[in-house]
């Protein structure tokens, strides 16, 4: 009986996992609102949704890392209340998180059995331990040396070892949180092979991912969450890619597509202006396991959007442009002059600026004042021995506090005490103070309230009008459409296509995000083959 057939006979096997009406409240936020979810034996069930949809909260609840505010979880008909990872494992629910929880310096066998080693008289019984580890690996159909340390193994094999560890405690349910996010195509293939085997052995597998093609390659059913609520559950065959993307983003695709999705474009988008080199241009910029080579350019007074789902390679591309990571291929030019690879200082000196995605861990000095945070980049460009006079610092701080309407008690307030929107404005002010040629904004409106968001959007339009070249990354499609002249659409870490002018609207972007790749058999395109 194929999984699909099994699904058609729900009465024949009651759901293995039955989550009913789960609510998860954090202070001030409802992360999950009466979400229901079920998983059958021998099924791979994809759980999808954009950032903040509630996937990871649901996974944590299943794994026992968090207890829901309300709702029930039944396993094979009996209610369980997992209180810890160990407790959940004792019930047969094992979770492999995205950041693979293995000890890199220990051997494969030790990792599989850590904390559950068979002992006699207090001493570990090595032969029995190895036998158990070997048995767990056999279930996945892989053969690796039990004595290799985990850090020597490729990421995909590490994933499999983590799954083996999960199986070693008699798992009936396997929850995989973004297992393929750092795998290439052949590695993903190996993993899927193993998952299919487990499915045949009757395991229920919850598969959390961002990669649309992978879902169609392996999942039997798809549940979509959005903003903490369940949008729906479909069998994979019954849900088109467009419908899936609509469900995830909450935006409807127009019935009529604007033509077929463009093939991945190898040429820079649009024709470069004839008279002057573009403000920022990149040619075949790529990095192994991070982003497939991409070419782009953006001129002064123009805004280029980088659109795509989370994990599509947007941030990776931005970091390459800014020199924060060194590319394996390609190069970046600013106003026609090539930048040395992988140097933030060179990029800043040439007039490139970037506000990072995670403003707290990568951008702001939280215990420093608004003024100090604002002057930091300008000061860095001037060098330490040419300090900005205090009066100039005060003037800059006062100017940007007023110009960007930063709501702070004063320029000497620690930035950590400001709201998210105002923190973002401080970060913007820091880079505006260096008067950059190109401004790269990675998710500038994430996690900030509506009012501040509107202000930041106005500001971006204003900067564009004043001749700055802008590269904008946003998960909000409407933002890209409203603010950008052109958009580069990324999908599964490759450039899926480009849209400009009239053609740039939400449904076109969505269609491109959802389009099946040229070769449908590939789960996600390998980054290596072109980079190498």
């Amino acid at each position: 009986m194929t999984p699909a057939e099994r699904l058609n006979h729900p009465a024949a096997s009651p759901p293995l996992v039955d989550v009913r009406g789960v609510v998860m409240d954090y202070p001030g936020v409802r992360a999950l609102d009466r979400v229901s979810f079920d998983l059958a034996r021998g099924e791979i069930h994809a759980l999808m949704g954009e950032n903040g949809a509630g996937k990871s909260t649901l996974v944590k609840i299943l794994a026992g890392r968090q207890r829901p505010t309300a709702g029930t979880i039944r396993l094979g008909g009996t209610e369980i209340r997992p209180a810890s990872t160990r407790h959940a494992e004792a019930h047969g629910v094992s979770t492999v998180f995205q950041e693979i929880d293995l000890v890199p310096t220990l051997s494969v066998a030790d990792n599989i059995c850590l904390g559950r080693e068979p002992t006699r008289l207090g001493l570990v019984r090595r032969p029995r331990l190895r036998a158990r580890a070997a048995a767990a690996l056999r279930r996945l159909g892989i053969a690796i040396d039990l004595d290799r340390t985990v850090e020597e193994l490729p990421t995909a094999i590490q994933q499999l070892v983590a799954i083996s560890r999960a199986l070693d405690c008699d798992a009936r349910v396997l929850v995989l949180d973004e297992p393929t996010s750092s795998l290439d195509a052949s590695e993903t293939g190996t993993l899927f092979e193993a998952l299919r085997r487990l499915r045949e052995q009757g395991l229920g597998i919850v598969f959390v991912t961002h990669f649309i093609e992978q879902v169609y390659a392996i999942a039997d059913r798809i549940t979509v969450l959005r903003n903490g609520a369940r949008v729906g559950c479909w069998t994979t065959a019954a849900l088109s890619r467009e419908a899936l993307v609509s469900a995830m983003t909450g935006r409807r695709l127009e019935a009529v597509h604007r033509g077929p999705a463009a093939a991945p474009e190898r040429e820079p988008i649009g024709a470069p202006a004839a008279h002057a080199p573009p403000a920022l241009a990149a040619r075949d910029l790529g990095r192994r396991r991070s982003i497939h080579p991409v070419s782009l350019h953006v001129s002064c007074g123009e805004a280029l959007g980088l659109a795509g789902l989370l994990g599509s390679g947007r941030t990776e591309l931005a970091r390459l442009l800014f020199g924060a990571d060194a590319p394996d291929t390609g190069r970046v030019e600013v106003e026609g002059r090539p930048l040395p690879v992988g140097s933030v200082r060179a990029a800043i000196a040439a007039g490139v600026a970037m506000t990072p995605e995670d403003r707290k861990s990568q951008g702001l000095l939280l215990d420093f004042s608004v003024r100090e945070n604002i002057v930091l980049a300008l000061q860095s460009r001037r060098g330490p021995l040419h300090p900005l006079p205090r009066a100039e610092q005060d003037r800059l701080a006062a100017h940007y506090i007023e110009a960007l309407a930063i709501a702070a008690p004063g320029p000497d307030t620690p930035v950590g005490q400001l709201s998210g929107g105002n923190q973002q404005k401080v970060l913007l002010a820091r880079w505006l103070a260096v008067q950059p040629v190109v401004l790269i904004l990675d998710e500038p409106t994430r996690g900030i309230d509506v009012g501040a968001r509107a202000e930041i959007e106005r500001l971006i339009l204003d900067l564009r009008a004043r001749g700055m070249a802008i590269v904008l990354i946003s998960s909000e499609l409407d933002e890209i459409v409203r603010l950008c002249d052109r958009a580069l659409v990324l999908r599964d870490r490759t450039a899926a296509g480009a849209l400009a002018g009239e053609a740039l609207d939400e449904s076109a972007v969505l269609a491109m995000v959802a389009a099946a790749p040229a070769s449908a058999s590939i789960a996600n395109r390998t980054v290596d083959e072109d980079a190498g």
Partner: protein
Amino acid sequence: MATPAGQRSWHASPAVWPVLGIVSLVLLNALFDKLLPGGPGLFGPGAFLRLSMRDGVPAGALVDILNYGGAIAILALGMTPVIATRGVDLSVGSVMALAGAVAASLVVADVPSIAALATALAVGAACGLCNGVLVSFGGVQPFVVTLVLMVAGRGVAQLVTGSQITTFHDPLLEFVGLGRPAWLPLPMPFILATAMLGATVLALRRTALGLFTEAVGSNPEAAALVGVRSRLLVAAAYVFCGLCAALAGLIAMANIKGADPFNAGRNAELAAIFAVVVGGTSLAGGRMCLLGAFAGAFLLQALTTTMYARNIGADVAPLPQALAILAVCIVGSPPVAAMLGRRRKRTP
């Protein structure tokens, strides 16, 4: 002064705590003198507050604090930027001994005293350079790198002097520790320390070096993303620390008119860390307070002088110091800070 003006009002500056500590220690001693049966009274002979003139210069417990605290203050000024970059320098005591040994040996070998002083300072800076390069470019943990110099540096100092105390008579070298300028009747170490405080504050706060150092310690990733040269800055912090340690070593040497490779700078690393931590610079890196470290050094010396006045041996002195460091660290630790932070209401 150590923190840019206007950024914190005076009572919020961490330097207040060590200053309050010094004041209360002095008062405590005075109270002891006054109330103890058979004690010297407030200003009697041997009293803590008593100032007498010896050889035309003031003397007494309070002057001792300024005198012996000077070297510690210089050490602490050097240690502050290192700790602000999330590092630590355990080798300062040995660098003190080494610098003293080099200077004394050179003077004894009839090298001009000014050249001997310069060489000793250069040796200190070179020690710091070794530490700094191994930490910032070699990627070895700071406490391991500096532990090596802490132990081996003392060995080298012994090799330099041939495992003996090298004594000398040299007016310039002696002046570094024992000098009392006619125009300013204060101990030379205190004057030097104050000058170093001024110079350090100028160098770090009148340029952007201080801000960058703090940025590297506060959020290394953010500092890298605005183009701060983190590695160079970290290495420079250790060089400065080595230089300060050498200067402190010269003072210690001058105080006894001899280089003692065994005992010079003993427990100095503890004293310097105490001063920095009590002065409001977190071992987790980030914000630093030079004035606080400066005051912290004199608090430590006040504590030591108090213990001497109460006949507690020098060898036991590290016990309360070590416990005090632990206490300050615990109060500033993430779990305790989180507990306190939950009570404090944040402005929106």
